[in-house]
């Protein structure tokens, strides 16, 4: 074909065809989507064959080059595991209390949605996309827009779905953005606010200090009659004192956006003064939820690691380091939460 055409015509044909295809795909074309699905199926056995050939070579190479590191890494991981076991027990009890509270207040959360476990089967081959491929698709109920998490936090969201595979856009991709919230207590964090801090409603944080309620119950006497002897046992309980500490939690909402692989995420607040005032380094960031949210409320995303005040502006650049280790993803979970399609489109 191209031998019978002049060079300029070939090039023009290539460029115009590319433009046409890009336009069709960007507008959403079912034929192209179907073709992608078919191509994914065709590519799957080729990928499997390539893996079968390359994996033994790769393992032998790793065995030779990383032998010394494996033992020290194993010891470090064992230590870490012991430490995490303690944290796990504490976290479980906190989660149970949290669920109870959500139930009482009839609030929606991530816990009311089912999840589908998946394995990461491939990374993006390009330098300019931060995506991974997972081995579940529309047959398992996965749909475009669903959030994906691992044990540590949010990993990304589904952008393309095939029958048995899906593509996940990672949270570090510049195209990724999600509504997030920062939860912090006034005494949390390490960075001191430069001026008098206020919440969204303008209340100074210093006024929102923790409130301690102390309730003292009078001593009680219980009489228990035992059936077999007919005697009664009397036990008395001393005066009971319960202390409940109500901490004022500051909640700030904003949009979190990726900045590229291995780079922290940027958080932009709805109220631009928030970052300068109430938000501090070390505060936890999780998904904000809501009707137009891409994920249900409460999925942990990361921790604020840096706040850069911008000169000549009331706002600041808030950097968030993701909890999930995106370099070493293996098993993930797709939360079967179908977000509002308008939000997905954005």
């Amino acid at each position: 074909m191209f031998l019978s055409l002049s060079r300029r015509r070939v090039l023009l044909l290539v460029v115009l065809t590319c433009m046409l295809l890009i336009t069709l795909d960007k507008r959403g074309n079912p034929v192209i989507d179907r073709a992608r699905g078919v191509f994914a199926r065709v590519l799957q056995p080729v990928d499997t064959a390539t893996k079968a050939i390359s994996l033994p070579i790769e393992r032998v190479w790793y065995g030779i080059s990383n032998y010394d590191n494996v033992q020290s890494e194993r010891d470090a991981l064992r230590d870490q595991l012991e430490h995490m076991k303690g944290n796990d027990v504490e976290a479980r009890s906190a989660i149970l209390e949290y669920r109870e509270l959500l139930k009482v207040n009839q609030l929606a959360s991530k816990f009311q949605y089912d999840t589908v476990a998946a394995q990461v089967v491939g990374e993006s081959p390009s330098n300019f996309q931060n995506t991974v491929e997972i081995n579940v698709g529309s047959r398992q109920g996965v749909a475009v827009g669903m959030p994906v998490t691992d044990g540590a936090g949010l990993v990304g969201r589904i952008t393309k779905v095939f029958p048995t595979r899906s593509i996940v856009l990672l949270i570090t991709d510049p195209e990724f953005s999600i509504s997030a919230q920062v939860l912090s207590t006034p005494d949390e964090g390490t960075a001191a606010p430069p001026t008098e801090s206020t919440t969204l409603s303008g209340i100074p944080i210093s006024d929102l200090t923790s409130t301690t309620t102390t309730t003292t119950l009078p001593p009680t006497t219980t009489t228990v009659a035992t059936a077999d002897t007919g005697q009664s046992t009397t036990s008395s309980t001393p005066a009971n004192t319960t202390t409940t500490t109500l901490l004022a939690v500051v909640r700030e909402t904003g949009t979190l956006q990726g900045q590229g692989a291995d780079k922290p995420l940027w958080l932009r607040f709805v109220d631009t003064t928030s970052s300068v005032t109430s938000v501090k380094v070390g505060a936890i960031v999780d998904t904000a939820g809501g009707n137009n949210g891409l994920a249900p409320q409460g999925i942990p995303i990361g921790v604020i690691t840096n706040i850069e005040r911008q000169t000549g502006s009331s706002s600041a650049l808030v950097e968030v380091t993701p909890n999930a280790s995106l370099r070493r993803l293996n098993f993930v979970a797709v939360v079967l939460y179908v977000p509002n399609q308008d939000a997905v489109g954005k």
Partner: protein
Amino acid sequence: MRTVVFGPLIRLVPVGLIALSIQRVVFAAHPVHDVKLQFVLALVVAAGAGGGADRGAVAGFVLGLLYDASGNTPLGLMALAYGVAGMTAGYVHTFTPDPQWWLASIFAFFGAAVGEAAIPVAEVITGESGWVTRDIALTVPIVAAFCALMCPLLMPVGRWMMGVRRKKWKAMLE
């Protein structure tokens, strides 16, 4: 005519599938200085350096389409970038119809650099966010150097894929 139309395509698609699979399984998983080396791009520029600008553009278009179909990019975006890469590498034929390996490697370097740099630019133009950042300064030379190194090895594959026979020079008999 029929062999001209279907001959290269019949070879391009299976070779492209294998190259794409190697890219996805091997090179995507082992970045060098956080840069993923581009095996498919190396094959495109090798085909261009071996077969000329127009053949390079067609090889880039077809392999780029396969790349797009497997990934998250809009269909046609990588095809455009790789088409430009193959065409640039193929300009070596304006100097000599049978380039030496080092000359082909130099053009492969420039072709790959243009192709890799064209991806974020095309993404910005087509409304994707794009990564026109300082990272390109590291990504482009590493990818281009890899393609230049791979060019002499992949040029025979590229020639076969595009149905080009290497010219055999014979001494003129009196």
